[in-house]
């Protein structure tokens, strides 16, 4: 009989015993949670990106300053991507008796590829989703343009040489926002009318966009194909490039989903470890017998390896299948609540889940199997003989390394992986040490207690190593639960606070220097007390440290683009409250010829602290040394700049001013007053954009909470398996106690004391580790404000006590009812 068949037969035989079914169930459940989290995170990630892409109206945009050749669209269609075009430019829109500068957008059929436009019959009237686009000869105008030009549905508006009929008021256009400079009031028309306007001519400042949407793989493929084909002035943008204020939110959400999946791995590993340890320990006798019957160590090892591999594969398949099912049910149940039409799942998590089952079982059975291989055959004659207690450090190392590998892979973020792996390892060591130390006073305390609690405490001390391992497993489960809750709350709070209630909802740009004082006075009169007006100069970076800047020298497309475009430079005396210095120092009074650069752009363009930068500002050179790098919260909705200089630095250059302020919604009349007083300024309404971002954030946080529930379930599973794992020994112990005359009440008290101490110890270790780790994660990974919350200790201790006692007493309930003799017999076998 081949070893493979023998292994199968041995396993099939084990199947009837029940224990292997429990083992299989625990690992399959752990894998299920892992895959359910992965599946769900995967789908939420895809959906969130698509949801967010509504704000881009596409998944990917190719924009250019001249018409885009047909090859790009053809290639995109060949790859199965949906395609649409837009052409945008600023032009005067002529109403019945006045004209207004408007952002004209001509769109092709299919626009927008993501999200929907909303239209209304009157400015600020009830709106509805739009079907398609304005037809040929028609235009949709936004409320602002309608108000300024007195337009209503049915009115005529002329763009260039083409007269159009207003057929609706455009109330919502997801794509807007982001680049405030582009936000003049909107007029949307059909692409077929574009030529007739006569405005598309050589030299016109027009942006052509090719909008693409489709499968992530096809998009990635297209991106890779397109990048080498980009001509000067063409650039590819995904959401993250185009909308920095959303990038942050999405990145954080992804990292949290990553963390949740990561902890699911840790918990799956802990569950696998506890249950496999016990399983293998129960096979010492079998191993000794097989040795006695002539099995060589190598052959027996192979037999067990084959069995475990089969088991792992089976658990992996079952778990992945279950995970798929669970997330499907969950998605169906939560689809409405989440307001997310989730993207179909990819098969990837299924493959990963199956492999994870195999890897988990093998990695954690290996140390136990090596221990098994050292069981002396003589055990058949002398039951007291077992393998060495310590086991193989190297083998444990392999198990840990595999899990660490899984973690890093799952994290997809080296820093997150490092913090979690390192943190858990440190927590484990600290737990082991703490427990060894704490067991000493516990033993002394035990001597002063009545018999029942004494029994419980002594049981803990007697099984010193067992207790240590058990507390470590329990604390791991609790730690994961605490960590996910804490980080989740931090994230949710931070998102909630992200757009403060007083965030500006209007931007005014193009303010001339002589209008600064009257506009400040006007704002003050309308209740905006602390309006900041920032000077703004357009400048192109021409040299770093005297070396002319060569856009082509940058590998990254974004860097090339940044090296070509003009920046808005400003001059500030104080560091804005939403900026943080990451290197160098903010300037002192009187300091000149220095710049402070946003750290993201500095990294992209390889600008270092101390570098000398030269800008071309309207033909005049502007030079200075980089004296500080700043981190900017782009999603704060305040005015921010990539590069700023000290006050006075921009004197003599042609500057306009920009300000942001908050006016309660519905103050249209006030704004109209402002526009008529200073017709040259452009007012931008960001309320709509903010509403979209708030919606996005609240959906992200709902998704985050669902993922959290999954991890919670596995955490509880780990707690349960850590306690169930010792059921046999406990049965024997209770049998002995009962035989020696302990009443059921005494046994119950002893068990309660034991579980209470176990729970408190685990809770303390988990709380300590969770507060350290959550602080590290908040600080280093999520970049969120974080205060150490004393509640975590309360939650850890109470949670540990409550959960361990509840699960522990449940796990031992049947044992108390069994006749002592039966327990003793079970122990013997």
């Amino acid at each position: 009989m081949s070893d493979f068949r023998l292994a199968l037969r041995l396993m099939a035989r084990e199947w009837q015993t029940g224990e292997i079914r429990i083992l299989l169930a625990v690992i399959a459940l752990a894998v299920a949670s892992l895959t359910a989290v992965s599946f769900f995170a995967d789908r939420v990630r895809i959906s969130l990106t698509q949801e967010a892409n509504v704000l881009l109206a596409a998944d990917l945009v190719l924009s250019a300053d001249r018409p885009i050749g047909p090859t790009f669209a053809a290639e995109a269609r060949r790859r199965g991507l949906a395609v649409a075009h837009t052409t945008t430019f600023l032009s005067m829109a002529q109403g019945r008796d006045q004209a207004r500068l408007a952002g004209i957008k001509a769109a092709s059929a299919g626009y927008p590829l993501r999200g929907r436009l909303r239209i209304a019959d009157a400015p600020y009237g009830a709106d509805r989703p739009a079907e398609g686009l304005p037809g040929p000869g028609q235009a949709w105008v936004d409320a602002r343009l309608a108000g300024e030009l007195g337009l209503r549905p049915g009115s005529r508006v002329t763009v260039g040489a083409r007269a159009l009929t207003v057929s609706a008021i455009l109330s919502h256009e997801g794509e807007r926002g982001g680049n405030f400079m582009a936000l003049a009031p909107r007029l949307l028309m059909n692409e077929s009318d574009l030529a007739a306007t006569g405005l598309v001519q050589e030299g016109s400042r027009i942006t052509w966009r090719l909008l693409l949407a489709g499968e992530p793989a096809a998009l990635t493929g297209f991106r890779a194909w397109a990048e080498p084909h980009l001509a000067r002035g063409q650039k590819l943008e995904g959401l993250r490039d185009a909308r920095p204020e959303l990038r942050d939110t999405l990145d954080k959400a992804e990292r949290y989903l990553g963390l949740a999946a990561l902890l699911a791995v840790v918990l799956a590993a802990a569950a696998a470890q506890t249950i496999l340890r016990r399983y293998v320990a129960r096979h010492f006798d079998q191993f000794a017998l097989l040795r006695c019957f002539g099995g060589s160590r190598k052959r027996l090892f192979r037999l067990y390896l084959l069995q475990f591999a089969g088991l792992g594969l089976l658990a992996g398949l079952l778990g992945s299948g279950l995970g798929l099912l669970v997330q499907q049910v969950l998605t169906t149940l939560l689809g409405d609540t989440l307001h997310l039409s989730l993207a179909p799942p990819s098969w990837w998590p299924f493959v990963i889940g199956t492999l994870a089952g195999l890897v988990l079982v093998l990695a954690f059975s290996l140390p136990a199997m090596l221990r098994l291989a050292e069981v002396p055959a003589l055990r058949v004659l002398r039951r007291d003989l077992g393998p060495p207690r310590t086991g193989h450090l190297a083998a444990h190392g392999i198990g840990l390394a595999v899990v660490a590998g899984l973690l890093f892979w799952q994290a997809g973020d080296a820093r997150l992986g490092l913090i979690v792996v390192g943190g858990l390892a440190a927590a484990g060591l600290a737990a082991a040490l703490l427990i060894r130390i704490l067991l000493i006073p516990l033993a002394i305390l035990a001597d002063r207690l009545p018999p029942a609690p004494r029994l419980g405490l002594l049981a803990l001390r007697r099984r010193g190593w067992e207790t240590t391992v058990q507390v470590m497993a329990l604390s791991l489960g609790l730690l994961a639960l605490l960590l996910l809750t804490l980080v989740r709350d931090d994230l949710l709070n931070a998102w909630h606070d992200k757009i403060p209630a007083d965030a500006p909802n209007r931007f005014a740009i193009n303010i001339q220097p002589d209008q600064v004082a009257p506009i400040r006075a006007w704002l003050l009169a309308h209740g905006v007390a602390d309006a900041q007006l920032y000077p703004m100069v357009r400048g192109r970076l021409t040299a770093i440290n005297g070396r002319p800047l060569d856009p082509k020298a940058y590998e990254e497309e974004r860097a090339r683009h940044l090296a070509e475009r003009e920046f808005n430079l400003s001059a500030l005396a104080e560091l804005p409250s939403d900026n943080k210095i990451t290197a160098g120092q903010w300037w002192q009074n009187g300091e000149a010829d220095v710049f402070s650069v946003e750290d993201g752009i500095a990294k992209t363009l390889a600008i270092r602290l101390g570098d000398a930068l030269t800008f071309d500002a309207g033909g005049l050179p502007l030079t200075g040394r980089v004296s500080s790098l700043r981190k900017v919260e782009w999603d704060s909705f305040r005015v921010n700049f990539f590069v700023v200089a000290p006050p006075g630095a921009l004197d003599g250059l042609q500057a306009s001013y920009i300000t942001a302020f908050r006016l309660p919604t519905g103050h249209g009349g006030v704004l109209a007053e402002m526009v008529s007083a200073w017709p040259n300024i452009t007012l931008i309404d960001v309320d709509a954009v903010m509403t979209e971002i708030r919606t996005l954030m609240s959906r992200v946080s709902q998704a985050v909470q669902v993922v959290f529930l999954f991890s919670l379930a596995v955490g509880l599973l780990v707690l349960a398996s850590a306690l169930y794992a010792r059921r046999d020994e406990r049965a024997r112990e209770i049998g002995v106690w009962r035989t020696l005359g302990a009443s059921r009440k005494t046994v119950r008290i002893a068990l309660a004391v034991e579980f209470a101490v176990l729970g408190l110890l685990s809770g303390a270790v988990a709380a300590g580790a969770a507060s350290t780790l959550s602080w590290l994660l908040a600080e280093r990974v999520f970049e969120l404000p974080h205060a150490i919350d004393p509640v975590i200790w309360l939650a850890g201790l109470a949670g540990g006590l409550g959960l361990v006692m509840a699960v522990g007493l449940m796990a031992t309930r049947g044992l108390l009812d069994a006749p002592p003799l039966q327990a003793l017999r079970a122990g013997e076998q």
Partner: protein
Amino acid sequence: MENLGKSVMVGEDRLDILDGVSFAVNPGETVAVLGSSGSGKSTLLGLIAGLDTPTAGTVRIAGQDLFALDEDGRAALRGRGMGFVFQSFQLLPDLSALDNVMLPLELAGLADARERARAQLARVGLGQRERHRPNQLSGGEQQRVALARAFAVAPSLLLADEPTGNLDGHTGAQVIELMLALNREQGATLIVVTHDPALAGLCGRQLRLEGGRLA
């Protein structure tokens, strides 16, 4: 057995469990090793089976020096020609009687493991109980399953460690009768370690172990 010795260190002190034990057993012979608790009987049996290594002397089976082989070599030798009966039966609790008997046969790679195991179970009178687990069998029945398992591999050497130690007198006698009958049928060499003089009396030769030495 040539000058067989086994000692262990207990703290600073050396404890001799076996000391200079020499004797020979002929093929087909039945030998009982008698001795009180702690006399070194089980240690001797463990050494004869090659389950443990001696600190002095050696064991030769059919001319083969057992301890010139490595652990796996000794395991292979056990697989080829040894059967075991233990005081505590050593049946795997999760396996049925039939599965327990099949285990060594399967490990030896025999294709007809099931048939052989069935035949042996029938021979020990447990043909109707093959699906039963050890905890569903009495002590005597468990030891009969163990006998079926030991004889199923047709061993040339059968080693029995206190086979009646966990049984009452009447059941013990039945088990011994069965063991000796099977042994006669198969013509195996039998070495049985016991403190039961009645059992020893049924063997062809008795050796007495006292304080680790042959008396």
